[in-house]
């Protein structure tokens, strides 16, 4: 059974059952979607460079904001972490492959179909989805273009893909650990992913329920979201955010895992407070189910509901604080070096914490009345999505790329990319806090003259940030093709764990005979 990769290009990549090849497919797909979503963002920022309508029509602008959100969340960030999970989890727990290799390939191949269906709506009569990535009813039902039906089935397919992918990860972690690899010895990346997978299996069906209700309301005369029939548009928001809040942790927990691998390596110290990290991750996951209505403080809930969701939300700061404390304490008195993955990870800790603080501001129900639906919210979630998830994904690629392909990336180019990305990110999103506090609402294609300066600054930062991603792409391709060959299994001096015991580059099959973990 020690078969290598197929020599035929098409059969290797289309019919794969190998966790490494499927991981690679996920990563390239996610980068392609990242560029597509980034292109949409560039259109948005170009239009917002100056007040007044310059380049596109308002109807198209809202399609761009909607598609940017959908493509980035479901197409770029989530598949990127599934790709990392595919590559790393079997190697980290000493398994020969994922538990269900054929289903693994199915979970991947659903995605290109789903996103083709979703993006093809941009070229259809009526245009693409134009109701925001949160697709609130009745904008997404009564007032939506016909193409919303393609969106609905596209979301169903993404959900099916995510559920199958998560079931695979759960089965792998529960069933495929090497002898001696007890739960409390698993690397934190594995822990955060298995908890993420539980979240996905629990909430993706709820998202499927939400879009099913939309489908019924639009086409079959039901009245879930129509008060005229006794339903309630606010019901949509509750169902959506019951999915949506765990979803943001689905995005950020694997990022926590990545950073918890990288910081100990470059601090040359074990992770501080391993078990508290595990418990903190589980607590965050649990809390994520009981805080959803903090996204809807201004919708007219009873005061008791507002208070409950406010306090429950604030509780999340406790386990998150534990994590930030542990990362910093891991670095304390460590023999630190600042390779590119470490730079991205430190930036992650700082900027994610900043995004967490603005989250605390938003969690105060009374104050949220002012911040709600302004650029302050946009700035907040880009600090956690971009500086959180995207930075840690970038760090992960730099960290593991030498192991994957047996070649070292260009460190100088990596550092240049980091500094451009770090500075450009802050130029883009820091001013959006000021815009939001000054009252600029999100999702509008035009704005009052008083917002001009900061919008210009933000747009310049955005183009710079986009450019940094092209540098990233170039560095990765250059490494794979022409990077300096290395063969040290450990790659990084301080790296610990099973994945660093296999040869570099990692062979097609690893751990066909399980290692024994002491």
């Amino acid at each position, binding site marked *: 059974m020690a078969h290598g990769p197929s020599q035929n290009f098409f059969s290797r990549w289309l019919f794969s059952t190998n966790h490494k090849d499927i991981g690679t497919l996920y990563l390239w797909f996610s980068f392609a979607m990242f560029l597509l979503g980034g292109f949409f963002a560039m259109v948005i920022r170009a239009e917002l460079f100056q007040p007044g309508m310059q380049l596109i029509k308002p109807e198209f602008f809202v399609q761009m904001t909607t598609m940017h959100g959908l493509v980035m969340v479901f197409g770029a960030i989530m598949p990127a972490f599934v790709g990392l999970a595919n590559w790393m989890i079997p190697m980290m727990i000493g398994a020969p492959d994922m*538990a269900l290799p054929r289903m693994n390939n199915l979970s991947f191949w659903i995605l290109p179909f*789903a996103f083709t269906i979703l993006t093809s709506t941009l070229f259809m009569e009526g245009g693409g989805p134009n109701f925001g990535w949160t697709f609130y009813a009745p904008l997404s039902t009564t007032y939506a273009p016909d193409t919303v039906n393609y969106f609905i089935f596209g979301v169903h397919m993404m959900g099916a893909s995510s559920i199958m992918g998560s079931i695979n990860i759960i*089965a792998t972690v529960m069933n495929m650990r090497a002898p001696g690899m007890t739960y409390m010895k698993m690397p934190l990346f594995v822990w955060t992913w298995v908890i993420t997978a539980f979240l996905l299996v629990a909430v993706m069906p709820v998202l499927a329920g939400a879009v099913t209700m939309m489908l019924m309301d639009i086409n079959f005369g039901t009245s879930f979201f129509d008060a005229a029939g*006794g339903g309630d548009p606010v019901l949509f928001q509750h169902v959506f955010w019951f999915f949506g809040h765990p979803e943001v942790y689905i995005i950020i927990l694997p990022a926590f895992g990545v950073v918890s691998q990288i910081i100990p390596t470059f601090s040359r110290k074990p992770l501080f407070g391993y078990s508290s990290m595990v418990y903190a991750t589980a607590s965050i996951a649990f809390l994520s189910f009981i805080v959803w209505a903090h996204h809807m403080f201004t919708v007219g809930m009873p005061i008791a509901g507002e208070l409950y969701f406010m306090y429950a939300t604030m509780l999340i700061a406790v386990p998150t604080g534990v994590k930030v404390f542990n990362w910093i304490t891991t670095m304390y008195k460590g023999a630190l070096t600042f390779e590119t993955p470490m730079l991205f990870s430190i930036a992650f800790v700082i900027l994610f914490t900043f995004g967490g603080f603005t989250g605390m501001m938003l969690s105060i129900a009374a104050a949220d009345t002012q911040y709600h639906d302004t650029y302050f919210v946009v700035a907040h979630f880009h600090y956690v999505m971009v500086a959180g998830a995207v930075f840690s994904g970038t760090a992960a690629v730099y960290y593991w790329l030498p192991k994957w392909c047996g070649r070292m990336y260009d460190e100088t180019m990596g550092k240049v990319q980091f500094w451009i990305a770090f500075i450009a990110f802050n130029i883009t999103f820091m001013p959006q806090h000021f815009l939001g506090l000054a009252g600029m609402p999100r999702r509008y294609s035009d704005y009052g003259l008083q917002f001009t300066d900061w919008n210009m600054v933000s747009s310049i930062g955005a183009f710079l940030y986009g450019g940094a991603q092209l540098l990233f792409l170039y560095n990765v391709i250059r490494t794979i093709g022409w990077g300096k060959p290395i063969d040290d299994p450990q790659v990084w001096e301080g790296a610990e764990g099973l994945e660093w015991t296999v040869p570099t580059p990692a062979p097609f099959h690893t751990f066909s*005979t399980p290692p024994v973990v002491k």
Partner: protein
Amino acid sequence: MSSESSYYVPEQSKLPLMAATGMGAMGYGAASWVIDGGTSTIFLIGSLIMAAAMYKWWSLVIEENTRGIVSDQLKHSYVLGMYWFIFSELMFFVCFFGSLFYVRVLVGPWLDGEAAVGWFDDTATDAAIANATHLWPGYDATWPPLVTPDQVVTLAANPDATEFQFKGPEHAMSFPGWSFSQILGWLPLWNTIVLLSSSGTVHVAHHALKEGNRKKFVTWLGLTVLLGVVFLFLQAEEYIHAYQELGLTLESGIYGTTFFLLTGFHGAHVTLGTIMLLIAFLRGAKGQFTDKDHFGFEMAAWYWHFVDVIWIGLFLIVYVLG
């Protein structure tokens, strides 16, 4: 513990891409079908591809098992897969049960300008008061709701109106009353009896299989499939009755909406479970299950118990308390 000898990592396979293609055509086809003037062609082609892929996929897994390469550890992966698949199905129903709770306990009172639940919501919010004074004056929330807010407002403007966007049902499906004949003629009760007994018969079949009594196994499993079909037949009768005699349709406001979506999705799952049991029945009749190795049947049986549990929730919440 995993090793080359004990854990089977399959060779490359064309089936996943085939299934994904089928699913893609189904998704695209379903969307173009529901849009006015659309046809079902692409959806049907996708369904055929999907069905063929699933048939081939399961045949392959069965064939691998008969070749003896499916280790206990791999079987445990299948078990975990099925557990978590059932959990995801459960969460799908949680979404609809939660929505029913929300519209029934909270939205009704709010539409009628009141506070909903004392300890949680003791004074009517501004939004609720605005509902009663501006949007739906005169609407009186009850459960089951036999009139919709739209109906109340339209009738207030024009007492002779007969056309409504949402017209409430003439009757609901709730508990009919305590007299013997009322209970005897109450279809949901019969459905409950049918489905609960089918959970019993599938259990007997399982025990027979473990004892190695194939004849008894096939008989009781066949009975289970039959009870599944009876359940579906009774539910079809109930829907016809609702549409033709009770004026209860998908379009009769939130009651019809929640009633048909909850019972409908349950019925769809019963259909799926019946098909799974039927396949297990045919395989059992061919002697493909042994007393130690009958995982395909066990999966179908778990699914069937799951469908049963959902029905008990439906029976209590949608029918008895409905």
